[in-house]
């Protein structure tokens, strides 16, 4: 599939940097750097993986290795740390390097793979696998597939089919398992088959407060909104407070906070203004829009009892 680019198999030399340029992987990596805030170790790991794949492809071209490297990965980290987003970029990188033929990403959870009665699981899992062929299968919260407390759970059947396809059809699809670090560790311990078939483990760290603030600003900029100075201060405060409260999900919590702030802003504009308003008013989120969040008064009422 990639031989056409170098013009035959006669050559005994490869130009890795030209390879890198032509594959278009550089663009994806740059885009990753530009668009994803923070995540330094993840970006580093992806660069390393891309380098490995480029070298491996060059070796294959010169006949130094015949086998496709194992590309299945596991992404571990807390919710909202960008696992799905990075998986999408990963699919793009693998596609540009020719390791997957189509480069699409199918994102599934336990419910999509495991059936509800005998004989339901295998067709369900196979259907998802067939859709993922030629691309990347992203299994979110993969540890739910394995339920040690119920030995008749159908999850085991899905795991067996997955393992078989991961082994026998390595050219056809790449599987990425994702979830919380500690639970994934336990999952791998009880399913050694998975551990041995996964070559790349990438750990996603939590975001720093400053990173979350710039994530918030870039999310707003995407939708043509912006903070005023007071709102920026309120957001900084919000991030600090939200982190201490239960169910904190990094960037996802920020996205939800912004969605609610936009709603409050709309409400404010609707009820308070009687004169015509301009572009600036329509796209400014003020401190007040954020400060009326329940996070500032100690979180959801239902959650208060639990944390104290």
């Amino acid at each position, binding site marked *: 599939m990639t031989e056409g680019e170098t013009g035959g198999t006669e050559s005994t030399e490869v130009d890795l940097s030209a390879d890198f340029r032509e594959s278009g992987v550089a663009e994806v990596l740059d885009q990753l750097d530009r668009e994803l805030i923070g995540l330094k170790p993840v970006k580093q790991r992806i660069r390393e993986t891309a380098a490995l794949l480029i070298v491996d492809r060059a070796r294959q071209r010169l006949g130094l290795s015949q086998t496709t490297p194992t590309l299945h990965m596991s992404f571990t980290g807390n919710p909202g740390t960008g696992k799905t987003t990075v998986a999408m970029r990963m699919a793009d990188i693998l596609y540009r390097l020719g390791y997957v*033929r*189509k480069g*699409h990403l199918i994102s599934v959870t336990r419910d999509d793979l495991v059936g509800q009665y005998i004989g339901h699981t295998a*067709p369900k899992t*196979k*259907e998802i*696998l*067939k*859709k993922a*062929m*030629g*691309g990347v299968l992203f299994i979110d919260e993969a540890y739910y597939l394995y339920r040690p407390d119920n030995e008749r759970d159908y999850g085991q059947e899905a795991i067996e089919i997955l393992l078989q396809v991961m082994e026998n*059809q390595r050219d*056809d*699809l790449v599987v990425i398992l994702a979830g919380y670090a500690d639970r994934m560790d336990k999952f791998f311990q009880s399913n050694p088959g998975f551990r041995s078939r996964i070559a790349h483990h990438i750990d996603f760290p939590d975001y720093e407060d400053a990173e979350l603030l710039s994530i918030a600003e870039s999310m707003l900029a995407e939708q043509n909104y912006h903070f005023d100075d007071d709102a920026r201060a309120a957001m900084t405060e919000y991030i600090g407070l939200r982190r201490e409260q239960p169910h904190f999900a990094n960037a996802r919590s920020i996205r939800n906070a912004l969605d609610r702030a936009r709603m409050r802003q709309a409400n404010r504009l609707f009820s308070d203004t009687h004169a015509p308003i301009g572009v600036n008013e329509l796209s400014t989120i003020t401190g007040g829009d954020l400060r009326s969040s329940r996070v500032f008064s100690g979180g959801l009422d239902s959650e208060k009892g639990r944390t104290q």
Partner: protein
Amino acid sequence: MRVTQGCFSFLPDLDDAQISAQIEYCLRNEWAIGIEYTDDPHPRNTYWEMWGNPMFDLRDAAGVMMELKACRDAFPDSYIRINAFDSTRGFETVRLSFIVNRPAVEPTFKMTRTEVRGRTVNVTMTTEYG
């Protein structure tokens, strides 16, 4: 007797790479792929058995090839065909259908002529096995 039906019937049997390429063509056109098998290739037998459900939303031929292999393993001595269904309004029909597996020993067809009233001849064709 070598039974021919559907598309490519004038060509020698397609190999797996060629089948795969045809399926890629179908998927590029966003047609749904179905696999069917039968032991009776009579031309009037339009209802073949379905191998699983038709496959929608596939992106790559590998998925179909996986099912085809499973079907061949289960019914090596059957005729297997691949149908590509186009759901576009106005077509809503099978756009491409071709045979991908045939038994080692193929049946033949026997023609019976029956003379009925007024010297009319009714022709009946039946499948004759080995």
